[in-house]
């Protein structure tokens, strides 16, 4: 094979190798596109991070009980450290879509209970109800919000909870 042709083929081969690298980088850097969420649906995302009440009332120590403690440990009250589970119900159009009693976090069970969950639903008008119990009560709810919402396809509606702001917030 003449040198000229051989060199031409070599350079052509190099160009092809560079072009192939560029094609791999260019294509897989963007394609194929990924459908992360089905078209035509909306999303409701529940996110709560809230500490429920302590498992029991504080108990005032008697002088005898205090006497049994080391001097540097003599606090007037003995408070249980653990917290109650957090009970949450989410209803969409009257149907329960989420119901749980969330345990507190932490090794001693004294941290906030947490939930982060998403639901998919058809767009349109819905009745959204969120209820939460963070105490030892047996009946009723400590916090409740009940509202009509209008969802459009692709919308991300957030159910947030902030006790200091009055409870559930629909964003």
């Amino acid at each position: 094979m003449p040198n000229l042709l051989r060199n031409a083929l070599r350079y052509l081969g190099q160009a092809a190798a560079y072009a192939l690298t560029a094609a791999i980088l260019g294509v897989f850097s963007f394609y194929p596109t990924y459908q992360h969420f089905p078209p035509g649906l909306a999303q409701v995302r529940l996110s709560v991070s809230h500490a429920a009440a302590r498992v029991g009332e504080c108990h005032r120590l008697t002088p005898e009980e205090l006497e049994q403690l080391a001097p540097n440990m003599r606090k007037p009250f003995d408070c249980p450290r653990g917290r109650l589970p957090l009970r949450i119900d989410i209803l969409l159009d009257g149907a329960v879509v989420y119901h749980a009693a969330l345990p507190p976090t932490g090794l001693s069970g004294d941290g906030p209970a947490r939930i982060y969950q998403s639901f998919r639903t058809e767009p349109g008008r819905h009745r959204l109800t969120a209820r939460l119990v963070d105490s030892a009560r047996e009946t009723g709810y400590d916090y409740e919000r009940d509202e009509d919402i209008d969802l459009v396809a692709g919308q991300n509606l957030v159910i947030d909870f902030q006790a200091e702001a009055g409870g559930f917030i629909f964003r």
Partner: protein
Amino acid sequence: MHYLRRTLRWGFAAPEALLDRCFGPAWNPLYHLGALGFFYYWIVVVSGIYLYIFFDTGTTAAYRSVEYITYEQWYLAGVMRSLHRYASDGMVLFMGVHILREFSLDRHRGARWFTWVTGVPILWLIYASGITGYWLVWDKLAQYVAIVTAEWFDYLPIFGDSVARNFLSTEHLDDRFFTLMIFVHIAVPLFLLLVLWLHLQRLSRPRINPARGLAIGTFVTLVALSFILPAESQGPADLARVPAVVKLDWFYLGMYPLLDVFSNGTVWATAGVITLMLSALPWLPPLRRVRPAVVDLDNCNGCGRCVEDCPYVAVSLRIRSDGKPFEHEVVVDPALCVACGICAGACPTSMPFRRASELVPGIDLPQLPMKELRRRLHEASERLKGDGRIIVFGCDEGLGRGVSGPGIVTIGVPCVGMVPPAFLDYALSRHLADGVALLGCGEENCIHRFGLRWTDARLARERDPRLRASVARERILKLWTGPLDRGRAARELASFAERLRQLGPLPAANRPKQREAADA
């Protein structure tokens, strides 16, 4: 595992041979994978520094500044953004091929475990660098990446509060979060550089820069790609909407769709198992057990040639301990030695002509001592018949003993760099063969890194131990061949034999062959 490795080796052989033809061995990209990874890293660093000048942190400022970079200053900052993107992708691509190829070349076991194992965190650090970069743009893709990553990390019980709650709504997202992210995006690559340095610690003369021509070609390719397909954002992030369709960068985010299919815990477990498997690979059967090189101080004057030539920094000099009148002595670190024999090939006392004393060089390979190599040379010579007799020193990792033919006998060696030039001189001057061939494992592709390079330099009389000037060079053939070059090797050897026949027999030996055999 062995069959997987062999299959991969054969899989690489064809593209290596093809690229050898196009680029030549010196520029073959497959022989510069690690160096190309470094080159991409530096492109990412330089382009990143430039982008940082214009980047603004904040929920709206970040996207706005990236739009400015992309469209208003497209001619420079925009190109830099694309270079930043594609060079990052190139790092992942070449890192992946690098891992597979090093595995196929069996460069992960034995003394080489350290380089392999330190490569595993590099893998994750590169991913961490890239993924944090995607957050900074704060477009729809960033929103998707941020939420999915945060949800994934929330599985781990190490955060006080949910990380994903930061992305519930715009009200939850703080501008300072972007300050934190850019800190992470800069800190992780800096830490990566430290681990890369560690990665190369057990390699002598590591190749961290690709051949200049290859570097230029690579850079021009990236610039061209940046103009043809500039990196663009995918619309501003909107936490009130779900980013339903995203254009994923599959190099970095290819694992993300798994999080939609499998639970976070399953994906963590998968990532953990992959990491453990990769880290444990050097110790999975079949184990490589080699006997490291040994030093004989009676024959070592501490000249340091073996130290210079060792590809794995396994040989070093220390102050003389035996009272002999030399400054240094050689010491071998068995944990670093792969028993390639290149050190023995560099030793000036690996001299087969020695008769007054036993052939024991200053540094030698227990599995194939120089004395045994000389014995095999004589044995091979006995088996040769007729004209054009050739003795081949064949690399065990290459075609090795697979090449045969009438008038050809092959002696297997761990690396041709183990064969001192004096052995070629000896074979010819003692009339043991009419010609000697060195059959290496592939130009610029030596399994033991420098075996072929040092052999080339020794034969060209550019490096000690040099081939004597009086040795008939036309009776020596170098054949650096890949696994697919069996046919070419056979043809070249046949042609060499023909040339030897035309040259005629060697001048009469100084000493009878039989006496040499008796010496051996």
